[in-house]
């Protein structure tokens, strides 16, 4: 998996993910990237999932772990551009209600200021 971080209005960190978030390939990388942002004091994080091709239960577990660690530090973690199959995987485990999910980057970034 490839990751890149860019900063948007209001200091929101947008994490663009590309590739797989599966066991042994991307799952730990996601956690480490989020932990680094949190350690740097960057607590408003938007994960852009548009180019995520595959996710499994391990990847879902890491997403949940990232959500918890950011929230526990007083931050917010939200999701952008969920591919349909990833949305389905979050829906069947009732996690879709846990995450704030956006289809528009502008709306997502603005929501952190609300």
């Amino acid at each position, binding site marked *: 998996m490839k990751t890149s971080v860019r900063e948007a209005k209001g200091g929101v960190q947008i994490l663009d993910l590309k590739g797989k978030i*599966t*066991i*042994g*390939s991307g799952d730990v990388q996601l956690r480490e990237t989020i932990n680094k942002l949190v350690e740097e004091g960057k607590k408003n994080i938007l994960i852009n999932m548009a180019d995520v091709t595959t996710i*499994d*239960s*391990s990847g*879902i*577990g*890491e997403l*949940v*772990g990232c*959500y*918890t660690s950011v929230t526990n530090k007083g931050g917010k973690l939200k999701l952008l551009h969920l591919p349909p*199959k990833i949305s389905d*995987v979050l829906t*069947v*485990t*009732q*996690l879709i209600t*846990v995450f704030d999910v956006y289809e528009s980057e502008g709306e997502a970034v603005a929501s952190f200021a609300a």
Partner: protein
Amino acid sequence: MSSPRANRETGPIRMSLSSRFENIEMAQHLCGKLLEGYDLPEEKRHWILMALREALANAIKHGNSQDQAKRVHLDMDVIDDTLQMRIRDEGNGFDPSGVADPLAPENRLKTSGRGIFYMRTFMDEVSFRPVDGGGMEIVLKKHLIREGQKEEKGP
């Protein structure tokens, strides 16, 4: 009339894999080959491969504890239009009834414990049995529809 084994050109497939996550995609690729000839919606095919991924990851991580000396045994075949996949590890076994319900509010934010749930969600039948001599076998079954046949049952 359907033949007892619809895809004789490909199946059955029997593999013995080392306990490495990198092997999951190879097994998924071969499962995909086995499914060729079935007019499966892309989504249904995707969920079958995800269930296989979860079963193999479970065997590698929890069954064999990623011990390279231990193998994961995979048998795949299509019999009477039903895909059957057997995944056996060489670990110490576990009690599937002891796995917590990932939908329970107290488990919703746990970072693990969803693999078996996904297998049960995406397949028609999922069964577990301890193997004589050690290890656990997971059997996954999914009814397939032959090309030209009408689908009688939802995904």
